[in-house]
């Protein structure tokens, strides 16, 4: 509250450069630094990401996924830091590659769904009327689909199934949530005076939408996409766990967890599935922490500082 009034005072002060109200990014960052748990989570995510992306460059994926019959189900040792799986493959190496793959697919799907969702939501909310009606009926239809079953059915049906098709299928069924959210925000935004003023001043719809309305929604978009990233990593690993995610030659964190579907592995070979499970848990928790902190930052009423 204090800050707000000092800003106002700065603005009305004559002859001086007015205090600019802090930009969306600055506010988000400030809140982030204040929230110690979120900051630690952010550092943890960055560290894990940096570690897996750098080390996986040094690792030979071919060698890691190659079956070695002389080293089946080995418990952790100095040679295999986290032991080996039922194919004699090094778990630690698979963990690094798996984390990299899971993170990458999570980020790509989040960006793609974000792009589609924001576009659809913005156009739909800004124009309203028939356009809105049409888009929202499509969204409604997608929303009622039993997501998991349809995605699994698509994954089975696609010929020459690979990572690209997996990404596209995930994207095709995950853009609706953000589209709905952005639409409702854009609907509110278009009633505001600045939009009418711009319109009167002769700005085109396109320029109002993208250079004026969109920046005002940026903090919501960032928050939603951060939370979506966590959800998408969870979905990918869940699908891989069920056997409908990445092919086995491209391990993901979920693939490692899926070895636990074998009761013997689950019961007595914890090193195969437990590290990957914990890593998924920690990653999702950390990303969620960051997302929640951003959410508080984006909502002035909940801001801590």
């Amino acid at each position, binding site marked *: 509250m204090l800050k707000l009034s000092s800003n106002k005072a700065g603005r009305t002060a004559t002859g001086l450069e007015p205090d600019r109200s802090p930009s969306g990014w600055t506010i988000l960052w400030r809140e982030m630094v204040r929230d110690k748990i979120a900051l630690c989570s952010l550092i943890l995510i960055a560290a894990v990401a940096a570690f897996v992306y750098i080390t996986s460059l040094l690792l030979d994926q071919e060698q890691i996924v190659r079956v070695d019959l002389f080293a089946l189900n080995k418990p952790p040792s100095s040679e295999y830091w986290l032991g080996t799986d039922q194919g004699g493959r090094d778990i630690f190496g698979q963990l690094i590659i798996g984390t990299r793959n899971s993170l990458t697919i999570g980020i790509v799907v989040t960006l793609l769904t974000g792009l589609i969702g924001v576009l659809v939501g913005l156009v739909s909310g800004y124009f309203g009327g028939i356009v809105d009606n049409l888009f929202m009926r499509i969204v*409604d239809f997608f929303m009622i689909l039993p997501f998991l079953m349809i995605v699994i*059915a698509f994954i089975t049906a696609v010929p020459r199934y690979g990572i690209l098709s997996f990404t596209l299928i995930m994207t095709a069924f995950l853009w609706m949530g953000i589209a709905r959210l952005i639409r409702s925000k854009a609907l509110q935004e278009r009633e505001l005076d600045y939009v009418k003023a711009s319109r009167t001043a002769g700005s085109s719809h396109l320029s109002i939408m993208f250079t004026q309305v969109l920046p005002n929604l940026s903090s919501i978009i960032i928050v939603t996409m951060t939370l979506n990233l966590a959800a998408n990593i969870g979905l990918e690993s*869940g699908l891989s766990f069920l056997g409908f995610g990445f092919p086995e030659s491209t391990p993901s964190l979920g693939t490692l967890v899926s070895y636990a579907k074998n009761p013997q592995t689950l019961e007595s070979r914890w090193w195969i599935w437990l590290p990957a499970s914990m890593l998924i*848990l920690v990653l999702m928790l950390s990303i969620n*922490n960051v997302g929640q902190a951003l959410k508080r930052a984006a909502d002035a009423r909940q801001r801590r500082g």
Partner: protein
Amino acid sequence: MRLMGRTVARRITIMIPQLIVLSVLVFLLAKQMPGDALTGLLDPSVDPAAIEAQRVKLGLNQPWHVQYWDWVTKALQGDLGQSFRFKMPVSDLIGERIANTFWLSLATLVITYLIAIPLGIISGRYNDSPADRLITGYTYVGFAAPLFIFALLMLWLFGFRLGWFPTGGSVAPGSVPGTFAYAASKLYHLLLPAVSMALITTVTTVQLLRSEIIDIKQKEFILTARAKGASESRVYNRHILRNSLLPIAAFFGYEITGLIGGTVFIESIFSYPGMGELFLSSIALRDFSVVISLVLLYGIASIVGALISDLILSMVDPRIRIK
């Protein structure tokens, strides 16, 4: 009540085209899947001409719209086709499994609310107390944790390590249906999967109830109630709780929708013979008639779930009644 009738009628007219599109989509998908049930079933020594003859007999070489129409007209009469794997009508097969999934979902729902209501009330009534912090921490972790990992850990810990619960199946082998031991065994097999799922699904309800109670606590009618001299317990039980439970009730339908995806994971992890487990194994073995029927059934369940929520919402909140 007349308004309600119109809401239902309107929702159902929207539902029908959604279902038709869904059925066409699913049917085409199933047709698109590589191989059909005959590819894997017959051994290679069988004459290819005989396989072809079988295909013709089953109508598998007709254009898709003919096959679709054929399937729809039969499905409307309750004939969902034959399962190639189990050699029995799909409707009988689903009938066998649906009861298991129903009990699992019901148990999960009951446990979800048994956890959510007390925790939400404690957390909302004594907000910012140590108990509230603990509960909020739990909902935080539960919100982020993926169901399948949590369930796997539960199975590992309570099923294998401690051996307190069975690690698979829906009933002990050799139990006689109808006896008390049979029912007890069913419940025993149900408990760990249901608790695992409920502990995760409950967190959104806890969060919702907490924020509702905190919200309503500050409303003026609560002040009025206190001013009239109502006791603290009366204020909470009669005034606050009653109002904050309404939105929870409204989310009941969406809770059903959420269970659908959850049971697939849970049944797969706990080898619990329900519809989710049937879906996964059928899709792996290309048993299309089963796959199509299950996806449609799940589609209907999620539409009905959304319908229930909308209806409860419109009963509770007159502003969103459809004019």
